[in-house]
């Protein structure tokens, strides 16, 4: 990864409309300088939601500063690779990354933590969910550089002392997974929900994973698994039709 790279801002989206992101509103904002980092977990996904959820607050000051053009005192990086230290699953790790590298790519490609999945690469599916200071974020929409100085927890870091996290165990018990590709993201989101709200309702679980897509259709069992960990029984998940 030592060769010179084309800086991200030299990409000419017009060169190839099929590869351009011009048809996408989130990316349009990126072009205006708001950057991918402003768009974290929960930004309008399957449904028409538009609110930025809790994750956005992590960077709200930076995002604001960026949109106001307050750039003085900001150090510029790139376009070449830079050495940064990421704190992942309790360990400080040095990585050489391009500043444009997303956290998802840094985790998967540079640190070999491939449990985090990339599906849409634009904040629409949450397969790439990791925790940043215990808050679930979409790692495909977060620059690795922006994770510096924060605690990153990935699916590989969820088990403690070889013991599965209760959410992981409940997912297996309830068969809340099929192909398993959405599963790491689902588990991260549900475990973060329980951290914040140990007694959620089924509605809370539905809302928490509203941004997590599963194409195999594991949702009902995810509700059941998560509620069981919380010790909550819900008539919804054991329906009598």
């Amino acid at each position, binding site marked *: 990864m030592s060769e010179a790279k084309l800086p991200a801002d030299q990409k000419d989206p017009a060169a190839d409309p099929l590869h351009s992101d011009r048809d996408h509103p989130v990316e349009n904002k990126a072009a205006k300088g708001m950057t991918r980092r402003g768009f974290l977990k929960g930004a309008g996904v399957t449904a028409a939601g538009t609110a930025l959820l809790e994750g956005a607050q992590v960077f709200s000051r930076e995002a604001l500063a960026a949109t106001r053009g307050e750039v003085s005192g900001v150090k510029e990086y790139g376009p070449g690779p830079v050495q940064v230290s990421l704190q992942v699953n309790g360990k400080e790790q040095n990585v050489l990354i391009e500043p444009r590298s997303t956290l998802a790519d840094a985790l998967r490609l540079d640190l070999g933590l491939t449990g985090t999945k990339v599906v849409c690469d634009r904040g629409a599916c949450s397969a790439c969910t990791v925790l940043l200071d215990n808050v679930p974020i979409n790692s495909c929409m977060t620059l690795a550089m922006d994770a510096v100085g924060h605690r990153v927890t990935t699916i590989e870091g969820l088990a403690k002392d070889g013991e599965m996290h209760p959410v992981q165990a409940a997912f297996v018990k309830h068969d809340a997974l099929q192909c398993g590709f959405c599963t790491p993201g689902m588990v991260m989101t549900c475990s973060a929900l329980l951290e914040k709200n140990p007694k959620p309702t089924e509605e809370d679980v539905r809302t928490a994973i509203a941004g997590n897509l599963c194409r*195999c259709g*594991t949702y009902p069992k995810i509700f059941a698994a998560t509620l069981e960990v919380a010790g909550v029984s819900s008539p919804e998940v054991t329906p009598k039709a």
Partner: protein
Amino acid sequence: MATTKVPISTDVVSDVVAEAIPAGMEMVMMPVGIPGYTLRQEQRTIPATEPPVLPINADLKFIGRSPERWDGHAKVSGQARYTADVQLPGMLYAKFANSNVPHAKVVAVDTSAAEKVPGVKGVFVIENLLGSAKLLNPALDVSKYPIIRYAGQPIAAVAATSPQIAEDAARRIKIQYEARPFVVAMEQARQADAPMVFPGPANEEGTAGGGGGAADVPQTGNIHGPSVNTHGDVEQGFKEADVVVESHYTTQVQVHNALESHGVVADWKPGLLTVWASTQGTASVREGLAGFFRLPKSQVRVITEFMGGGFGAKFGPGNPGVVAAALSKQTGLPVRLMLDRKEEQLSVGNRPSSDQTLKIGARKDGTLTAVQLVSYGTAGCGTGAGCAGPATNMYQYDSLRTEENDVFTNAGPGTAFRAPGHPQGAFALEQTIDELAERLKMDPLDLRDKIDRNSARRVERQVIRESAIWKTRNAKPNVDSGHIKRGVGVAQGVWYRNISMDSAAEVRVHQDGSVEVLSAVQDIGGGIKTVMAQILSEQFGVPPQQVSVKIGDTNYPVGPNSGGSVTTASLTPAVRDAAWQAAQKFLAGVAPALGATPEDLVLVDGEVRSRSGKMAPITFRRAAAKMNTSEVSAQARRIPDYDRKAYETYGGVDVAEIEVDVEVGLIRVKRILAAHDCGRPMNPQQTKSQINGGVIQGMSYALYEDRLLDPNYGLMVNPNLDRYQIAGSREIPQIEVHLVQSYIGQSSTDASGIGEPGGIIATPAAIANAFYNATGVRMRSLPMTPAAVLTALAHSQQKKETA
């Protein structure tokens, strides 16, 4: 587990019949039918080498139970390594350069700028495109490079040291097009003066998962068809009808969107091409690559250890597979080529649209006199839009005529998609049956009882009839007066018993008491690994988690391609046969040390026992230590179904309860009860998971999904998951699955598949019938978006006012 064959009493089998049994065969009695309803013993003549007949699930310890998913831990912990996760030393990342126009001749491809980007190691220009239909006479359109027939068609690719470099370089490939007029809307493509997608007859081959259309059919303009099927005389049938219902239905294009995209990691070494592939068929990828590169199959190895979902579009190497292999050959380095989401939506398959005119005639008693379907559908620049399956195979009728037409458009080729043609066909058929029931003043379940001979569905309808949800149905439509109207509707699906004879497995027993099973089959999420472990558990008494399951590698005995719901039905008998044979070898191997004859030993419940009682039982593990070799193994392959004359279909009956907000046009699905059969359910929990998935995908198809192409530019407007809407957590109804065990006496496991029969076929139609029940208005078009709902309601209002 019963290890003795069900004895055949001599007063059942006369000597004459017994003499007629061919050499090497024996007669057995097998459970057939539905426990609690129709269960009985039926006679089958089977090879004498077959294992003992399995009793019904209630009498088994591991099969038919729901031990946890064998690889569940790997998947929840992030340890499961999918194709997209494979990283090899020196591996390059490849990226396609795709067409940004929907129809053109490529006159030049200039890769020089891309080659100069530092980090680029290889560039490849496609000259032989896979996936689309092909002109029968290539001379009609001579071109060095494949003709561009859809926006997003891959043209070339680069391999570089990082994904970012590959992406940057791919953009620097300059493509010179000679643009051609194009057409993306099917209605337009059907017109005589429409731009021609192909200048002459073209065919698309199906894949191991189905798809592809009829080949020997006329082609006029863009219309490839009709493919005609007739039975009896429909004209006569309609004359004899007391009631005739004729309606027109349309359905949209749906994109698979398995979460893991298509892609491979290819590692071309002298003498061996190794490919990790996100595929539904390791065998199909091996076969495709060997054929494409003219390699002996023995020099192609395909690995699919974990696979992030497949719904019919992932067979064969496809363009990603051959391009990655070519780039690996060129560079001497492993190459990863995974499609991004946009490419996934544009270039590797979809469920074709449909435009159906369905006419059904019935007598007063409900019997069908005539069924007539004329369908058009577009699979883009491919074929396979036929949807006559349900109309042809679900009900009894006196006469039938179906005409299926493919319409070429400048869009990505369609492929098999979970029950190809069936959700479309059932959407029209099941609404027509609902309409007929109303016209005949019959209950919709009673009418189906009259015309549907399938015994499992009869039981399923009974389950529905007795359910709380059905009892709340108001037979009269549109009774709620507020703006939220509630409705309940029912619909059925049909699927077929498909068996792949390329299904083999090897079972090994080791001296330390460990057992393993090996097959090239891949687990695409259905859970075949768990089921294979359960079969060994049943044989050896070892808990499923202690069985080693090694699959997804063509180094193992060949496995079926997972399409058409074949996997469990095809492979499990081979696994059981191999386990049985390995157990017999094991008993022979330990008999001398135990001072017994092999014939006197049986392996039951994890114990070696003596039939004669000469020897005290000894655990399997302790007996294994006495084996006279370090390992015994047996390989078995699928034998044909025991009674192939008994043609079996599967299916299910789904009932949906919905609420329609008639002010804003929003449909909320509240509850689904899905009653389904799939032979012997091997692992009910996993089976239910799959049916949940089918129901949810069916609902998603019915209400949200729609591939939108811009008619002015021919580009897809919603090529990622932000705008291509699929059902998410907030849309999920309460789903109850009722599994009907339905034994058919066909193999040593008597299992069938569920991927296709479960949910995807019946659910959209059940929702549509529930909509009618709620509002008194028919939705004849999918998806039922708020805009479409409001339009349908307004039309019916207008009609009423003008009437």
